[in-house]
């Protein structure tokens, strides 16, 4: 088995995961990336998407929105403004996220970014199957 990296997922309210993972798939703002042992130190912001961590206990998926991921020699830490295990994600959550995004889109000047955010949310929702 390949080497592992220390993976931490924290939201402002709690620490969701802290395991040794063999790979972590991160929905980066500029595209998805997978972090494995020996990855170059990177900091990337997140887009709304699904974060997957593969460890000896199996693969865990989380719905994350907003925040950033820090890949360093010590491990991968993901700081997400909102992070929910996929199993717990439900229609109500997505409704709340979408309405929030739309509200933000209504006031922001950067329409492109706001529309991308909404599109990301829709894609995320479709991916989870809600």
């Amino acid at each position, binding site marked *: 088995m390949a080497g592992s990296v220390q993976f931490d997922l924290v*939201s*402002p309210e709690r620490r969701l995961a802290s395991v040794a993972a063999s790979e972590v798939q991160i929905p980066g703002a500029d595209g998805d990336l997978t972090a494995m042992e020996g990855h170059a130190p990177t900091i990337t*912001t997140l887009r709304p998407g699904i974060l997957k961590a593969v460890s000896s206990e199996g693969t865990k998926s989380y719905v994350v929105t907003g*925040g950033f991921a820090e890949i360093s020699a010590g491990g991968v830490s993901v700081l997400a403004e909102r992070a929910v295990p996929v199993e717990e994600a439900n229609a109500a959550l997505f409704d709340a996220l979408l309405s929030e995004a739309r509200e933000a889109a209504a006031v922001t000047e950067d329409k492109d970014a706001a529309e991308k955010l909404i599109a990301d949310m829709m894609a995320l929702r479709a991916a989870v199957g809600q």
Partner: protein
Amino acid sequence: MPSLKDLKNRIGSVKNTRKITKAMQMVAAAKLRRAQEAAEAARPYAERMNAVMAGLAASVGSSASAPRLLAGTGSDKVHLLVVMTAERGLCGGFNSSIARLARAHANELLAAGKTVKILTVGKKGREQLKRDLANHFVGHVDLSEVKRVGYANAQTIARDLLGRFEAGEFDVATIFYNRFQSVISQIPTAQQVIPAKFEGGGASALYDYEPSEEAILADLLPRGVATQVFAALLENGASEQGARMSAMDNATRNAGDMINKLTIQYNRSRQAAITKELIEIISGAEAL
């Protein structure tokens, strides 16, 4: 000299008071534990956030293109004080100590010729500052309906702050809250959130940045404000319960002392009444 009946009533009412303060103390103790856990759970996020932003700020901060949230507006004429207090009283000096610090700060700024605006969070602080600083109030955040402070509350406050900053309503924002030290000690703290200030920082490892450093920083700074507000809210929550717990502990003990004193007084006057009656009977019998 109060009559026996009065004393008895008095003892009864103090006993009831003691029951109430005791119950409040126990409730506060339970809530304190939860508040401390919440503050504990929020710490890793805040710490990492701070570390990464400090590293970014160190490398981007000096350039002319630095975001306004970091570099400031270039002046410091208008100060916004965000005063965070509790929604409820009966927690010792908790609210007054924040109000005192904020008032001192405001007066200092006013003396220096700056404009002061005040945003209050929690109604107790508002009540205390209303007397002399009411004309500086620009807004109020009511958290009385909130049972458990969540990140969403902090986001709302942060969004309000950022909106005002964008609109050019102030140059510098400072939050006032009580930092939780222990049950008997809470430290009133003033912390500048806009423009952002970082402790330590500097030497960060060499990272690849996706997208650019500036873009990440611009994305993170507003989140950083929310994180700091959230941390302050949680610290404040724990401090409030700690302060209430020790205040109610004191009150319970005082009530106990008072009951003892009143009981002794009650027994003394009862004994005096009995003695008096006896003397009356004896001297009556002797007179015959």
